[in-house]
């Protein structure tokens, strides 16, 4: 049976199912228990599974992530919540020097089946509360990096993340977390039972022949809308939702660009040294011929406070439409 669910409901449902399935699954973080998460994405878990398995912590992210390491070494599968991805700077050490590397440093002896669950993306609130940062995690070896665009995927990807023996950074877009179920144009029909969406497999959300638009997370929906608009102008846009930055499903992207010859990467993260250049370069390494390339991302500036400034730098339907037109040479 499929129901109309929003993203936070899906995340919490996935966690319920994982905690039920596997007693080793724990949820640890600020406000995840009594409150059920500041976005409600862990609602009901503490009531059902107790305050041992669903632990509200002090504001101590180094302790949260570090204890995740110890718990993983004890055979648990901790889901660690860092409320906003912006706060990762206080505890990145445990994430990239321990969680990401312990499997390797131990010569495969230990595993770190840890989910770093966090909220990213811009919904206002300025430079320290609006970042995506998946490009940062992706640069650091040993981490899988997932960012779903819709409730269906969120539930299935979270199930995959929790059952993965690898560390997964799971970035939920705040805008999507706050979006009502009925406002999702795709992926809000969600089965009640457990299912998985594999990590590393992109989703062709919309087929097209003139241009490949690669994106993920919060910019998938506006990209689809922009693609619909573009069609009215005779431009057929294929929209690919990457679902994860690591692994990066270049097979799907390459197949599309082979067809269209044109690539536009729409990325709500910072432009440089991130996702967009990696996608483009891997296409080149695969010797895919590209006739037009464009990147639309936050232009290497912090996210400003005022809406009038924010709209200028964060990709949205308007700027995506403009970028589509530019990429196909109809700007």
């Amino acid at each position, binding site marked *: 049976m499929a129901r109309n669910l929003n993203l936070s409901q899906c995340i919490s449902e996935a966690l319920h199912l994982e905690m039920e399935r596997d007693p080793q699954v724990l949820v640890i973080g600020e406000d995840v228990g009594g409150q059920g998460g500041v976005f409600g994405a862990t609602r009901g878990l503490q009531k059902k599974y107790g305050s041992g398995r669903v632990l509200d912590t002090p504001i101590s992210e180094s302790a949260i992530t570090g204890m995740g390491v110890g718990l993983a070494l004890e055979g648990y599968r901790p889901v660690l919540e860092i409320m906003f991805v912006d706060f990762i700077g*206080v505890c990145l050490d445990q994430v990239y020097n321990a969680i990401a590397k312990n499997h390797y440093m131990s010569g495969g002896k230990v595993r770190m089946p840890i989910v770093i669950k966090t909220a990213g993306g811009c919904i206002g609130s300025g430079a320290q509360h609006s970042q995506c940062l998946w490009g940062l995690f992706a640069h650091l070896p040993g981490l899988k990096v997932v960012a779903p665009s819709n409730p269906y995927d969120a539930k299935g990807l979270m199930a995959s993340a929790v059952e993965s023996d690898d560390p997964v950074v799971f970035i939920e877009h705040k805008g999507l977390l706050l979006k009502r179920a009925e406002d999702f144009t795709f992926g809000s029909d969600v089965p009640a039972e457990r299912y998985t969406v594999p990590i590393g497999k992109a989703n062709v959300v919309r087929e097209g022949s003139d241009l490949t638009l690669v994106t993920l997370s919060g910019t998938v929906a506006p990209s689809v809308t922009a693609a619909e608009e573009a069609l009215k102008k005779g431009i057929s846009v294929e929209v690919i939702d990457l679902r994860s930055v690591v692994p990066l499903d270049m097979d799907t992207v390459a197949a599309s660009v082979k067809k269209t010859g044109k690539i536009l990467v729409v990325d709500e993260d910072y432009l440089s040294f991130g996702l967009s250049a990696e996608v483009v370069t891997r296409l080149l390494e695969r010797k895919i011929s590209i006739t037009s390339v464009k990147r639309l991302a936050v232009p290497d500036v912090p996210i400003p406070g005022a809406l009038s400034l924010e709209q200028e*730098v964060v990709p949205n339907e308007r700027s995506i439409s403009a970028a589509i037109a530019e990429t196909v040479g109809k700007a």
Partner: protein
Amino acid sequence: MAQEITLKDRYGYMLWMRHFELACLEGVPTREIHGELHTGVGQEAISAGMVGFLSKEDAMCSTHRNHMHAIAKGVDLRAMLAEIFEKSTGICGGFGGHMHIFDPSLKFSATGIVGAGVPVALGHAYAARLKGNQAVAVAVVGDGAVNTGAFHEAMNMAGALSLPLVVVVENNEWAISVPFSASSATETIAERAPSWRAHGIRVNGLDVEEVANAFEAALARARSGKGPSIIEAMCYRFRGHFEGDADMYRSKEEKERRRSEDPLERTKETLVARGLATLEELNEIEKSVVASISEMLASVRKDPSPSGADATRYVFAE
């Protein structure tokens, strides 16, 4: 300086603080403020207790809940209101937003990262040492910030170097939904002070005079080279953590009971009881504050939004 500030003055500041926050609230349903908004309603006595002791040379580092601290430091209200309302006339031109109030002329800054202001205050305190002046650095934080690594690192260095750092902890007993009692190893924050060679005191943060006295003493200690202090001021946040917070983690009973202990009412009663003012006089003051702020808000609302063309400025100085 402090001598000039009377209890009635402090009550006046509390009124400005309260009504400033209420003015901010108006921007939420209208989406004039499109991001999070954290107000300090109910915690006015702490900020009002800090008024009058600090000069321009003294620094203050604040938090996500910073408006009232900024008022205490003397930051221009209109420029701050304009920043919060996302105007180009804002104190940061609209680039910062409500969590990022910067006034370098007053050495006031704020951060949205819990605990991160304390090391910044440490830097100010070290500057005072280098300059050999009498300046003090004040960090204001919430109870939740005490459990961050940054707090410990900064306090330890301040203690080791005996720096003029005063940390005012607004202990409103909650860090979003997590109660202080569940997140602190100790029953009070003040008792932790010796582990950083600091002086620690817990005060009633609803009592503006108690705060003022503790603050004055801590500043004197700092200025005389005796090192850091922690003032733990007990209080209660009257509203949700941010506007829009359903605030289900605090019982209705608790909220009602604690909100009934309003620091403004308390101060008003004291003033009247001591014969320092009449009720009418105080109500008149409130009326005039309300009028001024409402005028200020109306004027701010007419200001322009920052121009999108500027959005890529200020990444680098050069």
